[in-house]
């Protein structure tokens, strides 16, 4: 800042105004920029920790107050080729970056418009899934899912029982749906409606959906229907769409068929 003297340059002159504006902008922008750069690693670590916490939550392993990273060591990450549904071992699941893979034209494909009910756009050819084991036996299969709701893309994890057909749990960890209405997807009461629901029927057709209204007990499809929330139909439809896409043939369908041991 220029030294303030008693008589010289008038405070209101144009050069003086530009000079003050320039210096204020310079100081403020460097302040904001350095804060963003210095704090970035901590924020990234927090976001990673949050995702891990959600994976543990859907794995049924989360304990309040526990060390997330220590608990997370018990979860096995695997990379799956979505087209064949087979595990691939030429990449380290730890360093596999699904976000970067989705952006890389080599590693991702365009989702055909007629299949893209969840408005995914592109998807990576490979996906990182998580397995929970107990005494060596797989007890839960955790699949990352995402899709468009009413305003925003919902990101979550769907946990299936080892049969590859029964829902164990579901969590959504990032979305920007209407607060107080569309955010029912993160509420415990709604989450509790999922466990035990089935994904595919006897013929292998994908049936799981969020149902408008209340699924009654005598409804033959009640095993496949999760009650929606009135007033939030479009967010509920978004969840149905992302299930339709990700558990369908273009998503984890082939992988889950392998798990169920069916011929494709």
């Amino acid at each position, binding site marked *: 800042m220029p030294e303030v003297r008693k008589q010289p340059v008038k405070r209101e002159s144009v050069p003086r105004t530009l000079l003050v504006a320039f210096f204020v902008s310079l100081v*403020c922008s460097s302040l904001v920029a350095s804060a963003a750069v210095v704090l970035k690693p901590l924020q990234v670590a*927090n976001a990673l920790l949050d995702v891990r916490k959600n994976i543990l939550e859907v794995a049924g392993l989360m304990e309040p107050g526990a060390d997330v990273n220590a608990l997370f060591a018990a979860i096995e990450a695997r990379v799956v080729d979505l087209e064949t549904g087979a595990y691939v071992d030429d990449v380290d699941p730890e360093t596999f970056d699904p976000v970067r893979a989705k952006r890389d034209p080599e590693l991702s494909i365009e989702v055909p418009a007629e299949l893209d009910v969840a408005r995914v756009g592109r998807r990576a050819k490979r996906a990182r899934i998580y397995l929970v084991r107990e005494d060596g036996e797989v007890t839960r299969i955790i699949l990352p899912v995402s899709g468009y709701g009413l305003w925003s893309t919902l990101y979550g994890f769907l946990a299936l029982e080892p049969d590859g057909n029964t829902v164990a749990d579901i969590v959504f960890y990032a979305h920007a749906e209407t607060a107080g209405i569309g955010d029912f997807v993160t509420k415990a009461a709604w989450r509790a409606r999922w466990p035990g629901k089935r994904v595919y029927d006897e013929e292998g057709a994908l049936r799981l959906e969020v149902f408008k209204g209340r699924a009654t007990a005598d409804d033959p499809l009640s095993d496949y229907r999760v009650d929606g929330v009135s007033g939030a139909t479009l967010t509920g439809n978004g969840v149905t769409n992302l299930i339709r896409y990700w558990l369908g043939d273009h998503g984890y369908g082939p992988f889950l068929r392998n798990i169920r041991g069916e011929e494709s």
Partner: protein
Amino acid sequence: MSDSPAKRALLDPIVDDNPVTLHVLGICSALAVTTSLLPSLYMCVALTVVASLANASVSAIRKVLPGSIRIIVQMTIIASLVIVVDESLKAFAYETSRELSVFVGLIITNCIVLGRTESFGSKNPIGLSFLDGLGNGLGYSVILILVATCRELLGKGTLLGYTILPNVADGGWYIPNGMMLLPPSAFFVIGLIIWAVRTWKAEQVEEQEYRIHEVHRTEAH
């Protein structure tokens, strides 16, 4: 109250010149974040830091600041400080920062901050301006903490997440008042606080701008 200007700048805004109860400023965030105590505490710290630093910074350049661009310069300073505070919260208090969502960012538009930089910081020395910002931040905090305590205690039966009044649902005796968690209840609580303060300090009661005049039958022709 002592007459020392520093002490007055710091302590007056807490009760006698409170930004929320006397000037009725900063109500939007007071309604939004006060459903529980913990996010309210973070909000108080964030606003107090921004208000004191913005007031001191504006005061530091008050002699070179041309009048024609003074408001936009003040907004730039406030906005920069708010971004720094918001980024720090995301780095050091991730969970709470998600709960506060846009409301930390909205400190930029909080009338208390711009009100103090424009009416106090741009006319007074740096140290005094800092204390004035701090005092106003504390005045806001006192009200926010009072409102949040009422709402969390009556709405959930907890304080800072610890159970104080055991809920019926968990085998206790307290039936939580769900309305306390909705924004209108903050209006009621703030209204009751303003009423209480103005009963205690009658000089804060505003003069009525308009009074219904009682007319005698005989005058009305």
